[in-house]
């Protein structure tokens, strides 16, 4: 029986390594192409579509003013941009801060709406209420802690206009603005950079596959209305909406120059809560969409489901099994030093165990390589310190993923059995 688990673990790790090799190869092609392309600043902004920027804010007095100012100062024709900030069930001074900003002379002539609401549905509910007031051809969403760069919206719409019939949504890149704060925020920065600069680019280059992040993206207003708005029961509304867009035959395009800064958790407790919500939301999305693997959906949707299912279920189980085998063997070897009669239950024929170690070593190597490719593409991040951190993070930060996944999986099972409704949890901000 243990041999069976060993073989399954090795094959699963191989598939994870193969997936990483393919995505990384795609990312290198993308990066190479992009480095040869020159940035084109559009001459005539009058041809650009109208956009409604929506910012859901729940008790965000610490960050909301700076965020709104960043958005209002973006390089986009004022008469083509509507801003709706939703003060969602706020018990602090978010609404007052927004009113003060709106009254400011500089922003008096802007199309700037403050929506105070006390409804349910969390972020999705807030976005759905704002959708009723939206006048733009496209909807753009920024989280309340976002700091988009001056041309972020311009680059998003520029990409959308390349193939307006085919692109249902366009997403940009998010960067951690508090990345140097502590060990945790440095590790989150590595993860963010790797996902955005390797996974997103690789998947887009090879398969024209994208996923909407929670912030810094645009989506066609007509499309989101056709979908019926944001799913108020989904914990990760962004992944849920991505599947809806793909099932309607539209693509989610990547605009890599559209960059925005966001705040990442600096505290382990806040981080665990945020990631548990994401993992749980992604489990739900996978289970809700697993049927696409067996119906007549397009290959792109099947690949998308497979990618999520592999990342959140299959590879996780393989890593847990191989970790148990590794740790048990190390413990038994230590015990055998004192008592040679004790034998590990995980003893295998021939050199098979060695190939588990080799598969694991390849996985570790490509993990570090991916991070360092991503760091090389982000000016100023490819430092010795970050290289050491990339080597260390596998044994520390990355292992948290296992704990988070198990906790989220358990919580999802309990929800299903007891019929408990999942709660939307807002990430705590830092001043």
């Amino acid at each position, binding site marked *: 029986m243990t*041999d069976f688990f060993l*073989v399954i673990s*090795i094959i699963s790790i*191989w598939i994870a*390594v*193969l997936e990483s*090799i393919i995505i*990384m*190869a795609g990312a*290198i092609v993308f*990066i*190479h192409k992009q*480095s040869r392309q020159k940035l084109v600043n559009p001459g005539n902004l009058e041809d650009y579509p109208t956009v409604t920027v929506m910012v859901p804010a729940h008790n965000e007095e610490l960050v909301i003013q700076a965020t709104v100012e960043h958005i209002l100062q973006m390089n986009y024709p004022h008469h083509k941009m509507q801003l709706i900030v939703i003060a969602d069930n706020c018990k602090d001074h978010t609404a007052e801060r927004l009113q003060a900003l709106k009254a400011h002379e500089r922003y008096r002539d802007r199309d700037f709406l403050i929506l105070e609401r006390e409804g349910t549905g969390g972020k999705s509910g807030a976005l759905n209420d704002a959708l009723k007031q939206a006048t733009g051809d496209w909807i753009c969403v920024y989280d309340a802690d976002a700091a988009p760069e001056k041309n972020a919206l311009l680059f998003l719409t520029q990409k959308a206009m390349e193939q307006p019939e085919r692109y249902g949504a366009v997403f940009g890149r998010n960067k951690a603005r508090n*990345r*140097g704060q502590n060990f945790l925020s440095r590790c989150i920065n590595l993860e963010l950079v790797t996902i955005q600069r390797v996974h997103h680019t690789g998947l887009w280059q090879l398969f024209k596959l994208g996923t909407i992040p929670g912030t810094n993206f645009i989506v066609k207003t007509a499309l989101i209305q056709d979908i019926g708005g944001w799913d108020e029961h989904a914990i990760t509304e962004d992944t849920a909406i991505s599947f809806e867009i793909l099932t309607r035959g539209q693509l989610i395009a990547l605009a890599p120059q559209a960059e925005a800064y966001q705040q990442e958790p600096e505290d382990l407790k806040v981080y665990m809560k945020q990631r548990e919500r994401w993992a749980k939301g992604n489990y739900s999305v996978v289970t809700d969409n697993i049927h696409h693997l067996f119906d007549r959906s397009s290959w792109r949707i099947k690949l998308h489901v497979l990618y999520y299912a592999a990342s959140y279920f299959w590879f996780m189980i393989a890593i847990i099994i191989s970790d148990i085998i590794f740790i048990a063997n190390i413990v038994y070897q230590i015990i055998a030093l004192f008592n040679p009669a004790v034998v590990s239950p995980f003893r295998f*024929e*021939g*050199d*098979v165990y060695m*190939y588990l170690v*080799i*598969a694991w070593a*390849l996985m570790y*190597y*490509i993990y570090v*390589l991916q991070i*360092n*490719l991503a760091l*090389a*593409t982000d*000016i*100023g*991040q*490819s*430092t010795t*310190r*970050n290289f050491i951190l990339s080597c260390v993070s596998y044994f520390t930060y990355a292992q948290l993923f296992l704990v988070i996944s198990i906790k989220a999986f358990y919580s999802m099972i309990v929800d299903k059995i007891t019929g408990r409704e999942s709660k939307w949890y807002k990430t705590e901000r830092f001043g």
Partner: protein
Amino acid sequence: MWYTHWFIPLCIGVSIVFSIAIMILTIATLSFRSKIKRKYDRGKFSD
């Protein structure tokens, strides 16, 4: 054992193919990194 006669040659084959692929990716990463360093970084970083 029931599986070792086919599984070990498979392990050897897969390990060799993956090692070559990863080596190529490493060279591509390092050459890209040095190109970027030459072009933009000039020894300064913002971290």
